[in-house]
């Protein structure tokens, strides 16, 4: 089976600082994979290397068996690589519906049309509404994004990426900033995502990680510390040491 995403000795240095250290990583098709690690471990950097926002110093990124290291961000998106952001990156002054429609419009090649009325493309609205209903926020479709509570904005963040029909989805802390009592809502949303999308999630909320992921990779100081099932990771002494310090301390 071809891997959804694979990195081979992927490294990134900022001057003398190594933020990604020879990372070998495999994301299987349809996977529910979590990437955890202490603050500053280089998790978001790793995502940025995968999406092409950052250029690696060395190493390769492959998607569906195809080398994509030299492709820019928007080309990778067109191949089916979607992402969300740790800190909301939305179109605040636009409606929820338009937030979703922008990506769909680009994917369908509608965005290039200069002389036709945008409102004539009703398929855009339908598809956007479908995604919003899937995530349970269809009622807010015509609200301006900036007027939504933060938890719902997090869902819009996910909805935008779903509009890209991704084959691989990278979720950068989907529950970041959401009060823990509402993180259940995020998990619900993650649960309904199509099963054929391979998902890699960065998250600090361990409850969420253990409920969501069937495989976990631990990243420390830019390097992979260990990888395994949630059970294995939960009982790995190295992981405890990283998160909680030496047992005697």
């Amino acid at each position, binding site marked *: 089976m071809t891997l959804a995403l694979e990195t081979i000795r992927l490294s990134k240095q900022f001057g003398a600082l190594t933020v990604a250290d020879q990372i070998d990583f495999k994301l299987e098709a349809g996977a529910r994979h979590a990437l955890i690690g202490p603050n500053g471990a280089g998790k978001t950097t790793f995502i940025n290397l995968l999406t092409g926002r950052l250029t690696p110093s060395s190493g390769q990124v492959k998607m569906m068996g195809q080398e994509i290291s030299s492709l820019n961000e928007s080309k990778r*998106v067109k191949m089916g690589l979607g992402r969300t952001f740790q800190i909301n990156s939305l179109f*605040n002054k636009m409606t929820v*519906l338009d937030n979703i429609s*922008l990506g769909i419009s680009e994917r369908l090649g509608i965005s290039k049309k*200069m002389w036709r009325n945008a*409102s004539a493309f009703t398929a*855009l609205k339908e598809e956007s509404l479908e995604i919003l209903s899937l995530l349970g926020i269809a009622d807010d479709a015509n609200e301006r994004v900036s007027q939504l509570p933060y938890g719902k904005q997090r869902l819009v963040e996910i909805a935008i990426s779903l509009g890209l029909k991704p084959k691989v989805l990278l979720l950068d802390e989907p529950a970041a900033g959401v009060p823990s009592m509402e993180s259940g809502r995020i998990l619900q949303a993650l649960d309904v995502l199509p099963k054929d999308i391979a998902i890699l999630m960065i998250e600090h909320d361990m409850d969420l990680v253990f409920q969501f992921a069937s495989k976990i990779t631990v990243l420390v100081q830019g390097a992979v510390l260990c990888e395994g099932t949630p059970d294995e990771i939960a009982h790995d002494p190295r992981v405890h040491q990283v998160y909680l310090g030496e047992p005697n301390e």
Partner: protein
Amino acid sequence: MSKLVGFQSNPRLKISELIPWVLALAVFFVLPDYLSLGAQILTYILFALSLDLITGYAGVVTLGHAAFFGVGAYTCGILSAKVGITDPLLLLLMSAIVCGLLGISTGLIILRTQKLTQLMLTLAIAALCFEVANKATTITGGADGLTGVVIGPIFGLFKFDFLNKTAYLWCLGILFIFWYLVRRLVYSPFGITLTGIKENKQRMQAIGVPVTSYLLKAYTFSAIIAGVAGALIAQTNQFVGLNLIGFEPSGEILVMLILGGVGRIYGAFVGPLVFLVAQDFLAKQFPEYWNLGIGLMLLIVVLFAKGGVLGIFDKVTVFRRSSK
């Protein structure tokens, strides 16, 4: 605050959108002595409209847009005075082509950069164009300006007359065409994508939008419109001077657009009208201090009326609705 155009916006023409055209025609009949100023205002509206497209909708702030305005004017002027082409439509077309090419080539450079770097590059390009116009005296006339511009009758029928009647209607007609095109564009998926780029460039890249290529198209179109506006002013005045190119007119047009309101099409109509009428009035009353009046006006708008003169109207309607 005005609502952004979105995929669900109704593109039908509102009655209020006819006001500028009715007023413009009224001026033609009622104020025949002001048609020279009127034609001037119409060309600056076209110029401001081109700036609104790239700054108000696509979010590219430029301090060098008069590079296109000036090059458009000089292209028209030189082709007439030195080459002997006098057909006004053909001259507009040539200016459009030259400015389109200049737009693509400079856009390729400046649109790769961001923020201050971008602003400085736009300024540098305008300064370069200014220096070329200033130094190449044999072709451009340098600081003395380009004289000998002769413009033939429009479509071979309508001569440019002493009272500027023809020029006024000619400018109005061209403005109408480009207003229609810009409005069309703003309500198209392409236009909404531009708005998305203005709102959040990073996210647009992350949803697969090749941002630079979209901006380049918009920038080129904007350059073409500015070039046509420049050519119109060359035809109206039958003279081209350094005051049309470089930093000063670039800053001025930005001031006019901000005065009227950015990113709303009609701000580009109101701004030049207010600015040039005030300039005309103040220059007659206080020939030494007229700049002060313009400065105060801008100060008031920036401090108290974000969104320009049209922004004030927005606030009034919102207030009236909420008090009902």
